[in-house]
């Protein structure tokens, strides 16, 4: 018996030992999709394009220090705002001294967000173009491609404005054999952005100007394209009149569409979403994708009585008194609880609470004040911005002053909301428009980019436009120099790519 068993076990064991099947060692993942086997149907494309939008909201990201969102950093670059709480790190403080080190975490964050988004765009463009006939409808294909081209342009636009020459990468990464990409010139990068925006605009030509989905629309593309052209006309490329005209014409397409309005009251800017004056915004929702700004901009130190149920992590940034004082007398925007506030009703409705200072009210979210969570969108582009771009472009194109009726109407639409008693001007100057931009778009992540492309600053005492280089804003510890216009390349990236050098 033993022998039989032994022999059987021998055989079984030998069979087992000598058996090897490759399929046993094959990985069969069930929890993620593989980009190499993607782009089979419309829904997959939809999910991939949605993915790019998740990078747009990265300016809401922060480190553990309260009120350290990337959004806040750009508002320290211009020097009209001040921080009430400690910074935690030197990263924000560096913006005040205009000595931004290459290991500053914001310098890395902006770079990282943009290139991650761009890689997704490159991969989607290639993916959609390679899709088989019939797997996606022409209309959807155009829409998704347009959104992707637009977003790639948008992220390169952010990169080139912040860093100047950057690597221009337009195809997806396959392996890591060659990762040290060379810098492209600012000119080449803008040419690509212009092309991407044009491409997106053409693909969307037959689509609606607006919709309430929160996605990029034809209106978004044309408005952003106007901003790109206006920037190309100004610094650093200084393409001049030709591009000011292009910018004006592009803005005017949006203006002529009649699809956007300026809200009657500033309050609507805080309550109406994806319609009216709002051209494009970061989509937020209270429970799943909260907006940190309401809480970050609360008064600090916290007032004796709570005015909001949101965690009291305020003090991220507020307007300086000097900048506030540059608003004209009677300007509605300086009235209590329009753009700024000094007191607010207590949460328990027991009366007004003095905040002990002047704070930004633009991002006040009454809902958040009551339930503690903010689901407010964050506006990236609004019609008032477009109108002022249109006026500025025309005034520039006409040599500094214009009496173009549309340009004046554009300017006046914004102006009269703040100063209803003021009469319509017969001509406007570039400086007038720029002043208006400072006041209207303050703390909306536009001011720094406006300064860099115009090389102009608002004098915080006189309220007049002055040359940016050599001017020192209220909270900065030094005047602007040429060197302050661009962020350094991030230290991490410099270590990994030796091409990232600035002359």
């Amino acid at each position, binding site marked *: 018996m033993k022998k039989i068993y032994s022999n059987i076990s021998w055989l079984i064991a030998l069979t087992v030992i000598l058996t090897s099947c490759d399929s046993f060692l094959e990985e069969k993942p069930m929890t993620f999709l593989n980009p190499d086997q993607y782009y089979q149907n419309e829904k997959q494309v939809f999910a991939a394009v949605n993915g790019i939008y998740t990078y747009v909201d990265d300016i809401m990201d922060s480190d553990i220090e309260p009120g350290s969102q990337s959004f806040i950093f750009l508002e320290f670059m211009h020097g009209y705002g001040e921080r009430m709480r400690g910074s935690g790190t030197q990263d924000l403080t560096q913006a005040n001294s205009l000595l931004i080190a290459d290991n500053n975490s914001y310098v890395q964050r902006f*770079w990282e967000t943009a290139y991650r988004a761009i890689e997704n765009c490159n991969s989607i463009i290639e993916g959609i173009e390679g899709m088989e006939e019939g797997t996606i409808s022409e209309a959807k294909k155009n829409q998704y491609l347009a959104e992707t081209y637009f977003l790639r342009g948008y992220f390169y636009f952010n990169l080139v404005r912040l860093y100047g020459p950057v690597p221009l990468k337009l195809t997806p990464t396959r392996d890591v054999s060659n990762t040290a990409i060379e810098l492209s010139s600012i000119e080449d990068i803008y040419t690509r952005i212009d092309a991407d925006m044009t491409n997106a605009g053409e693909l969307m030509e037959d689509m609606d100007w607006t919709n309430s989905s929160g996605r990029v629309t034809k209106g978004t593309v044309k408005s952003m394209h106007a901003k790109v052209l206006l920037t190309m006309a100004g610094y650093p490329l200084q393409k001049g009149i030709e591009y000011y005209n292009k910018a004006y014409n592009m803005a005017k397409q949006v203006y002529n569409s009649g699809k956007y309005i300026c809200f009657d009251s500033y309050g609507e800017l805080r309550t109406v979403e994806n319609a009216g004056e709002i051209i494009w915004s970061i989509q937020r929702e209270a429970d799943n994708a909260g907006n940190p700004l309401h809480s970050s901009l609360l008064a600090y130190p916290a007032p004796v009585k709570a005015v909001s149920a949101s965690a009291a992590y305020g003090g991220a940034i507020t307007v300086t008194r000097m900048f506030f004082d540059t608003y004209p007398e009677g300007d509605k925007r300086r009235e209590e609880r329009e753009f700024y506030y000094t007191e607010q009703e207590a949460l328990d409705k027991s009366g007004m609470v003095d905040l002990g200072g002047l704070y930004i009210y633009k991002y006040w979210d009454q809902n958040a004040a009551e339930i503690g969570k903010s689901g407010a969108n964050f506006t990236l582009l609004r019609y008032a911005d477009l109108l002022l771009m249109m006026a500025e472009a025309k005034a520039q194109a006409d040599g500094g002053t214009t009496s173009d009726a549309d340009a004046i109407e554009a300017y006046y639409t914004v102006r009269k909301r703040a100063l209803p008693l003021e009469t319509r001007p017969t001509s406007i100057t570039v400086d007038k428009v720029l002043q208006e931009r400072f006041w209207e778009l303050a703390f909306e992540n536009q001011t720094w980019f406006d300064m860099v492309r115009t090389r102009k600053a608002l004098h915080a005492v006189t309220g007049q436009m002055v040359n940016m280089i050599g001017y020192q804003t209220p909270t900065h510890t030094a005047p602007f120099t040429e060197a302050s216009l661009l962020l350094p390349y991030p230290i991490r990236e410099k270590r990994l790519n030796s091409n990232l050098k600035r002359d």
Partner: protein
Amino acid sequence: MKRKQRADAPGVFSEIVKLMLVLMLLLCSGVEAKASSNLISQQTERTISGVVTDENGDPVIGATIVVKGTAIGTTTDLDGIFTLKIPTDVKTLQVSYVGMVTTELTIGDNAQYNVVMEPDAVLMEDLVVIGYGTRSKKDVSIAVSSVKSDELNERPSAFNIMEGIAGKVAGVTNISMSGRPGGASSLRVRGMGSINAGKDPIYVLDGVVGVDPNIINSANVESIDILKDAAATAMYGAQGSNGVVLITTKKGKKGKGSITYDGKMGFGFMNRKLDMLNADEYMEVQRRSYAYSGQTMPHLTTADEKLFYYAKDPSGNYQYDDYGLLIASPRYNTNWQEEMTRTAISNDHIVSFASGNDDTSVYSSVAYQNYEGIIKSSEYERISGTVNVNSKIKDWLLVQLVGTVGSQKGNNNDMENSFGQGAIRNMIEMPPIVPVKYEDGTWGRKGDYKYSEEGENPLLLLQDRRDEWKSNFSVFSLNTTLDITRKLTLTVQGDYQQNNRKGMSYAKAGLLDVSENNGGYADISNYDSQKLTNENYFTYTDAYFNGQLSSNFVLGASWYYTHSESSSSGSEQYFDDSFDYHNLSAGTTWHEPRSGMNQNTMNSYYFRMNHSFRDRYLLGATFRADGASNFGMNNKYGYFPSLSAGWRISEESFFQPLLTFVSQAKLRTSYGIVGNASIPNYRTISQYGNGSTIFNKELTSYVTLSNLGNKDLKWESSHQFNIGLDLSFFNNRLEVIMDYYTKSTRDLLFEKQIPITTGYATTWTNLGEIRNDGFEATITSRNIHTNDFLWVTDLVYSTNKVKTIDINGETIQTGNNTIAREGIDWASYYVYKRLGTWGLAEVEEAAKYGKRPGDIKYEDVNGDYKIDEEDRQLMGNGRPKGNLSMVNTFKYKGFSLMVDLNYVYGFKIMSITHSMGENRPLYSNSVNDILNAWTPENQNTMVAALRLPSDPFFGENEKDSHMLHKGDFLRIRNVGLSYSLSPNVLNWLGEVNNFSLGVSVENLALFTKYPGFDTEMGTFNTDNGQSIDFYSYPRPTTVTANMKITF
């Protein structure tokens, strides 16, 4: 073979070996019979016979009887009887048997002899488990260390086997990350073998590969053998590069059954407190901060009756001082460390049953352990049952069933290392002027005084937040060993491991930053894993050249399959707190549900041979091929060979003169290659990550590129050379084991940073080389050994150094402000050097850095007036250079006293806790050192001037040299006294076979300059957080009483 085996066989493993030996000898005897028949014709012969028995009178089967100095010999048969033809002039026979003292038999005229052999105590103990078999220690040419049950359980408060091993084995360190019961604890064998791949050794429980060591109750363990060098671990190939820990469960012994109760009860105290400010000192810091910024403390202008007493006149009007300010003193002086801690009670009880007869032995136990943490409400509990059945079902079939089932649970609501509202961090940071509760019953909060950071009361966190986990686990293993021939056996083993882990948390409504706006917040997560393994191997044992060469061969194959699933969900906005986490649908807002699946397979083939020639020349070789699913299609299989050799010099004739002094000497050396496959699954495949994003308040799915797959990813291999010397002196009174090794890990599995322009931050790749070098020594000295008194000293010493050899000339950020560069120690701190503070005489120089007197001054290495990346300097690392343990044991009659000391040196601790305690003066309470802050009168200081948060350099916390502290320490790890009843008393007691009582103090004292709770701690995880102190859990001093009784 139905005859009785020897009665006192120490365990089945040794039985198997003996069995194999018998088979071998039976076979050899045939050969030798032939040989001796050749001799017959030449000499005059006589025939003698005899019986060989052990001290119990049982026959010794297979004992070798040889004529001394010749090849003439035979072995005993199944009844212990031998018959041998010998030349007439032979006077002496030598009788030998494994595990017995070799005896010499003087031959007279008789034809019949009875030989009684005695067990060799030293050799009996020295059978080591080496994986896929056992081997006598004397025949071992690899670096393997054993810890027996008694040693493992020497310190009753050791919480798991990892802590029990601490200090027992040279080259093996216990990394205990916190003083929390159930806190992360792991072993490191010979330094750090990998960068990003796993660093834990593999645990093998009775042949079951890859067991979670946390489920093992050390009272059930018979022995632990740790394989250290590559020749030993290569048998585990791809899983062996971080060492192999072989755990053997206790077995039932033949004879009368026994019942053992082993119970421990302990009391833990907080021994070291952080030196935090009291209320008056805290107010002094406030006063100086306001003064520096030219402001007045707010409570001196507006009365804050909640926190302060004010001077008032009899009619109740406030009194003012000369400056027109109120006169106030703090109302409360809370010592938060005292409020948060308690005497922690621990209970550890186990009852075990053991019995055995000729064919079957059974060991079983049930155990209960409950450990409280010294932070209130933290605890850990484990219930487990173990069974180990060995049965010889047929002559040729041995079956072993080992099973462990149980559950563990813990409450982690104290949350160390927390960025959010952690109870330990809040305990340290709560201002002393805030009470636990105000007179009106409301809880004090951190932010109650102006500028203090918002923070929840840590006691309220402990009370209202639960963060529990529990896990149900089981391990079953069925091992069958078949004798195919007398020399060849086949072992087939099937194992099943299962673990369900559940995490549950609930925060009652109203906890700041936790559930203040969520109205109750609950989360539940489930993790479920299964592991199936199958091991099959042949063992062949034979002897050649008249028994001068004995050889052992193993050939086998294994299959491993691991599958895990996870899911989680949660909800918030509860209308009532009474549901706890038990009814998620009672919340109105639901958390995103999540789930996942992970699967890993491995397939291995292995071969080993061991030879021992003339008992003095030892040679071993192994080869293993492993295939793993988590490697690229092009590199699924890795191949791991090893070679080892040993020379028992003391067996040589030239060594004879030395034998009186040196009783044994063995030289060992080995070289081998082992691998590491502990990387996450699916890294060779490019991946889309997914989630939900918002469009117009609606959730929509999205995907984004998350991983760039590397199809060429291959095995990391570790090449290790080892040389060792085993010596014993003065008849084994003094034993010395020394090893030197150098272990170079190549093709490191490394999550390489790549430029983000690729769209990815990292990708897994194989990179370069790091090298561990170390020296280990274990010395056991029986200083005094009389009948009544025994004094033994055990010294265990090891060093280790990790150098970066080749990383393509790059600088790798290894986390927590440490870097790796070629030629320097791995993960060296790379920080600014703090020179002190800028003085009043340095106004101009300071201004060049944008600073003023009182601000922190760093060394500007390149003198460019910028403190940046180029100014960072290498500042040592967090891994100890050396570790020395000394255990002295004194035994007098039934008493035993043990003193266990541990000295660790040559490392630096980065204390984030202490530095945060110095740079957040108004936000939080501070460490006492802050009182030494800069003032015009005290300029020679490391601490910046105190100021208000609006100052740009408030809370400056660049990582710098000031955060680093020398970590060297001497710990009285344990002092224990025990008493065992003497046999006389036991006889009188009748049924009781053994009774002992003991008391011990764990962590009696810690001598160190380090200002934190403890020098052994870590943050984030055991891989790279060692010696980073980020609000770590304090380590208690525990007094434990134990009682052990055997019936």
